[in-house]
């Protein structure tokens, strides 16, 4: 049981994605919570679920066989198709939008190395409802229609944005800000 659990984890780690990312990419078919319990050998896993996992990882461009997952025999999994995995983003965006009301999808127009964001990465964000003084990665929509992607902190009078790479701090008056969206998903390409 433990060995299967390790192999299930190995598959996910091959793609370097979180369990939540698996849930999004599988359109919710594979739940992050279930995957966690299987990877940690905390619950029995059915054959049909194992088949689902194999199918999912194959769709993500991983060359993996059912035998290997069950027994550990056969070739170890490898990434075979980055193209297939990258194309999956279309479905993932649809799923993200369906699962999150008041959300926005945005292609990052710049790289923010310290936050591991590259130009072209796709971010999913949800509109923040209540004010918080915690610093978060947010997408700010300004009243003039422009956007700012930055570490953000709100105060009663303004919005502070922080660019750790440029060591720049900016203050935006509240009247300049239309909406603030908190980034909850970052989709990178292989």
């Amino acid at each position, binding site marked *: 049981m433990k060995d299967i659990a390790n192999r299930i984890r190995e598959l996910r780690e091959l793609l370097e994605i979180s369990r939540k990312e698996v849930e999004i990419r599988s359109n919710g078919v594979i739940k992050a919570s279930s995957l966690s319990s299987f990877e940690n050998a905390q619950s029995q896993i059915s054959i049909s679920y194992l088949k689902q996992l194999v199918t999912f990882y194959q769709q993500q461009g991983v060359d993996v066989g059912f035998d290997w997952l069950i027994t550990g025999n056969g070739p170890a999994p490898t990434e075979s198709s980055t193209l297939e995995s990258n*194309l999956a*983003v279309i479905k993932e*965006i649809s799923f993200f939008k369906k699962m999150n009301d008041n959300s926005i999808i945005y*292609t990052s127009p710049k790289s923010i190395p310290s936050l591991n964001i*590259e130009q*072209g990465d796709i971010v999913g964000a949800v509109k923040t409802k209540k004010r918080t003084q915690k610093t978060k990665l947010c997408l700010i929509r300004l009243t003039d229609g422009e956007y700012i992607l930055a570490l953000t902190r709100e105060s009663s009078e303004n919005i502070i944005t922080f660019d750790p790479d440029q060591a720049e701090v900016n203050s935006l008056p509240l009247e300049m800000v239309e909406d603030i969206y908190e980034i909850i998903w970052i989709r990178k*390409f292989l």
Partner: protein
Amino acid sequence: MKILSSNAHVITIPIQEHKGLETLFLGLTKEIKCSYLTYMIEYKSCKLYLTSNEAWKNELISNQLMNSCPIYDNAFKALERHESIVTIWDTVHHKRGVEKDIKDYRTSFDIAHGVGLAISSPEWRESLVLAGKRDDPFFYERVNSVIIQNSLSKFRTFIASRKI
């Protein structure tokens, strides 16, 4: 670096001139209401550009609007670090000014809500675009990897047959 430079050698071919590609386009129109299809392959400074919309091609290629389009700019810059990039047009912000003007201009040709795929190899760069009409905001949801891979395959077969 500009996507199109003044010394670029660009060959453009209307998709409608090739029966196999026209059949592909008509099939996509029927299956997913695709109203715009382009494919470009680049090798050094040579580009072969196939399009279903000659009028927009004149603006994008001949008038070099491609150089100011954030969709192409984002994709090709990101492609410097990846083998392939998928772009959902509606997630790319067009800044006020030239970028926004290009978006409005493109929309005036009834081309919108597209999905782009850019692929790089050590020698070649390819880009494939499928788009819908302006009143079809969920067009991208009908595009899937089978459709894209099939379209790519058809264009690659066409290129191979031309022996360029």
